[in-house]
């Protein structure tokens, strides 16, 4: 399995502020895909954002954006204008075929 590392077990952010989650991965492949998934307390895993490694442009989805640094093998997630509903565990994931390899996750708590 590919190695995906999320070095921040927990993060806390004030409502309306910005938080950045880090993710690094290890691969010798050139073509692959990176994902951020959100798992709220309900436990339903939801895709937040997807990045194709051959695309240099960073993916964005509304308040969520990534900073993809291919040479550094880094894939961070920025949540802007944090909302209470963003409270969840966030997983970074890597895929170069059908399967996903996940990091250990970062718990994000948004404070009112």
């Amino acid at each position, binding site marked *: *399995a590919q190695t995906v590392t999320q070095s921040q077990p927990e993060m806390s952010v004030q409502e309306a502020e910005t938080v950045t989650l880090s993710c690094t991965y290890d691969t010798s492949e050139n073509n692959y895909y990176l994902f951020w998934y959100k798992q709220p307390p309900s436990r339903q*895993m939801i895709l937040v954002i997807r990045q194709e490694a051959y695309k240099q442009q960073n993916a964005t989805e509304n308040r969520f954006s990534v900073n993809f640094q291919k040479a550094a093998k880094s894939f961070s997630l920025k949540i802007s204008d944090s909302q209470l509903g963003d409270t969840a565990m966030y997983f970074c994931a890597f895929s*170069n075929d059908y399967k996903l390899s996940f990091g*250990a996750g970062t718990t994000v708590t948004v404070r009112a």
Partner: protein
Amino acid sequence: DVKVTQSSRYLVKRTGEKVFLECVQDMDHENMFWYRQDPGLGLRLIYFSYDVKMKEKGDIPEGYSVSREKKERFSLILESASTNQTSMYLCASSPGQSGNTIYFGEGSWLTVV
């Protein structure tokens, strides 16, 4: 919307019991997966299937088996449950092409006592 349904949300089983976790997807996806989620370890792949009756071992297949007799259904089997298999189990599915988004079910909490 893609729907991945896990039949049991919460189960309590005794050590040595045979346990079946069932999963059904309604989007005609070729690929189906079983992951196990534990605190501090993220999600780890147990088995996956890329076609009916086809299966491949993931990273932690020991103690588990799977069955895929129909395209929409993928079952995880614990032949003889043990306490170290107490965990959250997540089923998922995706279309056949590499790099496609994987869609998850709501998870099954299994406690083995």
